């Protein structure tokens, strides 16, 4: 519960007794000067009012359906709906009012403090010198009212308890708070222009994901239940029946047409999602930190201290790779895997973008991590993707051999099927499956071996692996906090081993897979001078294991 640097305590009665004094403050949502305690933005009431309308719509639909079943007159139904609407809105407003009235925050020279809680009073405070991130997030309704939600984090753990959330503040106050907490002068902001900015042509990479093929089917499935629930069951089942009849009658036209519709809906969805997540994307290098702004409807502003950066990762999922695109992610300490209700993971630095741009951005971000501009040569290794050293042929042999049992298994299954299946067409065609598996397996094995690689730059250890998602990670050599070297029985026979650099950032460990024994050990020994050296033996004498 108690994270370092964070005090958390339940408030006792005397403090709660203080509060009525605040309530009489004529300034409303503005600054309450008494001891510096401030309120959240009072306009939040409008926002919660507007959001409660969604609840009202759902409730009204349900109520109407229920009352229609009870043979009510139209007037009665309207009255009931209106009553329910008033009740819901009033309840939401009352709750939000109580929340706003009981929440206070203040910024002292040392700490940021927040008092909150309707039933359980809480007092949380964050030392200002530990503040590492100030993130702003505003959904469309908040934006209409000029408000934004502020999250202040220490960046030590991804957990909830190291974050203070001010929900919501007026946008101008939020920006001021951000700048004050991060010790930033307005003029010094973004001196060199952005590191990257959105180009709408990148949207062509958006549909290059598995979701494009599956999303519309998933959405249909998810919609089916709610549509039934609000009384459209007869409609949905009739549509489904007609559709099925059509497919059965004319499979040769229906199936390709449906697949095409599925694909285009998926692609459209992916493009819309891309636009929402990455519209107005802008990555800036401010002194000591990176600032990422994105979002067309819901705007987000994320700050990442360069001190927390331990490297960059270029991730190329198969489809995106075939399309010539790549993604750039950070390897940083204290980032959660995925923030709740976010479609992008917290480490993402850029939307899918052309490969050469991705390499350039990665190199720039990697060099931003250094205190000295002399760090740039290290990024040259990242920039020249071809400079990676491939791994021995034994690595490929290992993968090919590993792919064979799967093929044998599938072939055996196909044999059984062809022998026992009652339909003749199954018997004729089933042999295609093992052939496809064999080809795919061999391709995967060769591609996987081809993707293996490593390099040692002035500042980074670069390693690459993966078939389905090819990941190239440049890990800051200073960020390596140990080595784990593994050698399985089969690796030992082929003279290979896997060198894993452990680190406090990102996934926690990054591997150089199936590298030649000597190359791997020398690589580890040179990457962090002096750490592995005392444990190595060199020379022709074969050490007894």
């Amino acid at each position, binding site marked *: 519960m108690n994270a370092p640097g964070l005090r958390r305590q339940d408030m006792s009665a005397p403090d709660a007794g203080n509060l009525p004094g605040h309530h009489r403050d004529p300034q409303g949502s503005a600054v309450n000067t008494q001891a510096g305690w401030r309120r959240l933005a009072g306009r939040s009431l409008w926002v919660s009012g507007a959001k409660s309308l969604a609840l009202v719509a759902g409730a009204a639909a349900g109520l109407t359906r229920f009352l229609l079943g009870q043979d009510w007159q139209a007037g009665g139904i309207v009255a009931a709906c209106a009553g329910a609407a008033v009740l819901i809105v009033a309840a939401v407003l009352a709750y939000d009012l109580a929340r706003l009235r009981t929440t206070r925050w203040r910024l002292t020279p040392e700490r940021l403090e927040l008092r909150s809680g309707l039933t359980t009073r809480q007092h949380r405070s964050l030392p200002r010198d530990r503040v590492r991130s100030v993130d702003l997030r505003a959904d469309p309704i908040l934006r209409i009212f000029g408000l934004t939600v502020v999250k202040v984090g220490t960046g030590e753990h991804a957990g909830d308890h190291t974050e203070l959330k001010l929900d919501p503040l007026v946008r101008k106050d939020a920006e001021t708070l951000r700048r004050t907490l991060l010790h930033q002068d307005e003029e010094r902001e973004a001196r060199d222009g952005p590191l990257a900015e959105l180009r709408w042509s990148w949207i062509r990479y958006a549909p290059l994901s598995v979701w494009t093929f599956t999303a519309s089917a998933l959405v249909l499935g998810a919609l089916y239940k709610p549509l039934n629930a609000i009384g459209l069951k007869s409609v949905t089942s009739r549509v489904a029946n007609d559709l099925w009849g059509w497919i059965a009658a004319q499979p040769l036209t229906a199936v390709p047409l449906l697949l095409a519709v599925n694909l285009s809906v998926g692609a459209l969805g992916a493009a819309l999602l891309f636009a929402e997540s990455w519209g107005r994307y802008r990555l800036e290098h401010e002194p000591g930190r990176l600032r990422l702004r994105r979002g067309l409807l819901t705007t987000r502003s994320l700050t990442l201290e360069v001190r927390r950066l331990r490297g960059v990762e270029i991730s190329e999922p198969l489809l995106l790779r075939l399309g010539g695109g790549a993604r750039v992610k950070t390897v940083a*300490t204290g980032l959660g895997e995925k923030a709740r209700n976010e479609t992008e993971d917290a480490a993402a630095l850029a939307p899918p973008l052309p490969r050469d741009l991705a390499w350039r951005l990665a190199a720039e971000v990697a060099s931003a991590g250094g205190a000295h501009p002399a760090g740039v040569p290290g990024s040259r290794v990242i920039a020249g993707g071809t400079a990676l050293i491939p791994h021995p042929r034994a690595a490929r042999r290992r993968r090919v051999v590993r792919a064979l049992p799967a093929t044998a298994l599938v072939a055996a299954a196909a044999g059984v099927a062809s022998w026992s299946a009652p339909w003749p067409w199954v018997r004729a065609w089933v042999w295609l499956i093992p052939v496809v598996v064999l080809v795919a397996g061999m391709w995967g094995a060769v591609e996987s071996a081809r993707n293996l690689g490593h390099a040692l730059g002035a500042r980074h250890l670069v390693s690459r692996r993966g078939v389905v998602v090819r990941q190239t990670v440049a890990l800051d050599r200073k*960020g390596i*906090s*140990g*080595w*784990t*070297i*593994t*050698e*399985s*029985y089969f690796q*030992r026979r082929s003279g290979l081993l896997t060198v*894993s650099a*452990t*680190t*406090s*950032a990102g*996934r*926690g*460990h990054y591997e150089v897979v199936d590298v030649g*024994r*000597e190359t791997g*050990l*020398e690589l580890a020994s040179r990457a*962090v001078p*002096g*750490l*592995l050296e*005392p*444990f*190595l*033996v*060199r*020379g*022709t004498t*074969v*050490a*007894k*294991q």
Partner: protein
Amino acid sequence: MSTTMLRPPRNQADPRVIPWWTVQWLLLMAPIAVAAVAAYWIFTEHPLWLGAAVAVFAVACVVLALVAPRAYYRVERWEVTGEAVYTRKGWLTHTWRVAPMSRIQRVDTARGPVQRLFGLADVTVTTASSAGAVKIEGLDRAVAAELAERLTAITQATPGDAT
């Protein structure tokens, strides 16, 4: 041709780990063997070939429980220098771990109930990485305590925030 290899760490676990691990393995394996024999006795018609197979399985379980600890004892080694903690373990898959003193965040000693009977303790060295814990198993209790103290002292003397 020159070769580069990792040399084995200098120290072995306390010899008492062999009986301790044997007890652990037996606690795991004996019920399996007994269950197999019981299942044969209760649920089958006692065919001879199945009886032989079950007997071989039960004996193999017990033999494994007796042999495996000795094998592991031979391969598990550890070493602590002024700069790093270095361990090796694994029989089929060898695993070497190195953690520098400057990155060590926490040093723990742990003694399980059975372990206590043998006067043994484990020392776990945790770094900031989620994957970086290095465990030295089966040390003499006094050696473990002394090692933990030494590691803590070195770690505190090393500057840096260990991330």
